[in-house]
């Protein structure tokens, strides 16, 4: 991952570090790796989302370990230097700057929500559609619900999962959630 990190322009790297810090501080639910990757690619840099995800993971681990061990900025830079000697200068600069500004603020988490062993639900987007026609049926008029769930995986990175439901499936879906909510109330 170290050699891929040199591909990322400094300002995008800074943005990524910012998001990681905000996520570690529970200010945002997750890191928008996919969206960031797209913008980096649009700017002409050839990086794929797998590599960016690995870099985000590594940086996240770096910052959270540093937080838990209460590292000062100098200690962090020294650790970086001794571990991954091939980190490009501009990357070290960004990491040093971000840690200097925000490192102290990261509270070693006391929050119950931090024990992420499964994905955390972030948001839901939906669409109600009617399929009018297809190559098998000229006149369909088939209603369906499309849902996109934004989920933050255990490393904090946000991925989207989209799927469709028929109307009866949707009604069942809704009913299950209402049941869940009422159980949560009473528990």
């Amino acid at each position, binding site marked *: 991952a170290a050699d891929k990190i040199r591909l990322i322009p400094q300002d995008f790297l800074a943005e990524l570090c910012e998001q990681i810090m905000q996520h570690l501080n529970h200010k945002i639910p997750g890191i928008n790796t996919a969206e960031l990757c797209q913008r980096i690619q649009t700017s002409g840099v050839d990086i794929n989302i797998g590599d960016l995800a690995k870099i985000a993971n590594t940086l996240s681990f770096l910052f959270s370990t540093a937080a838990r061990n209460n590292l000062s900025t100098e200690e962090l830079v020294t650790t970086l230097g001794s571990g991954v000697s091939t980190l490009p200068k501009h990357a070290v600069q960004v990491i040093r700057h971000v840690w200097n500004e925000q490192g102290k603020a990261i509270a070693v988490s006391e929050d*119950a929500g931090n024990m992420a062993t499964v994905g955390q639900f972030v948001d839901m987007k939906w669409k109600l559609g009617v399929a009018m026609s297809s190559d098998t049926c*000229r006149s369909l008029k088939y209603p369906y619900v499309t849902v996109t769930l934004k989920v933050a995986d255990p490393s904090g990175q946000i991925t989207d999962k989209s799927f469709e439901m028929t109307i009866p499936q949707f009604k069942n879906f809704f009913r299950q959630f209402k049941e869940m909510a009422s159980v949560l109330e009473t528990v």
Partner: protein
Amino acid sequence: MAALRDGDFGALQILLKLVSALHNLTRHVVYRGFNRAEDILGLFPESFHQNLKNLLTKIILENVSTWRNEAQASQISLPQLVDLDWRVDIKTSSDSIARMAVPTCLLQLKIQEDAALCGNNPVVSALTVELSKETLDTMLEGLGRIRDQLSAVANK
């Protein structure tokens, strides 16, 4: 063992043409959405054998809604939700917090990738998501709005 004769291959070819013709006919009926005998009868040429035409029409009519449902189920679509399991837990303690009582929901969605792409071996992936009370309420709100939209559309 019977020897293969030239006539056998001729017969096989005719059989293949027959199956292909039936397939085209039924697909056309499903595509046009015909559900009345007159529509289907009208497809056949004048010279076609009367009784055969009536028999075929009868059989097609009996099956057309099943075929239509199959066509709808296997059309291009996003991955489909096939199953939903859930569980409510209470987090009582962790390595960082000694005592707490935080209710949380674990949801497992089973999603089947596009049937048209997978053929006979659909790929089902499981997505496990945790929801807190707040995120569950967000979800419910969204779902409620879908339900309202559905009723509005149904009443038009």
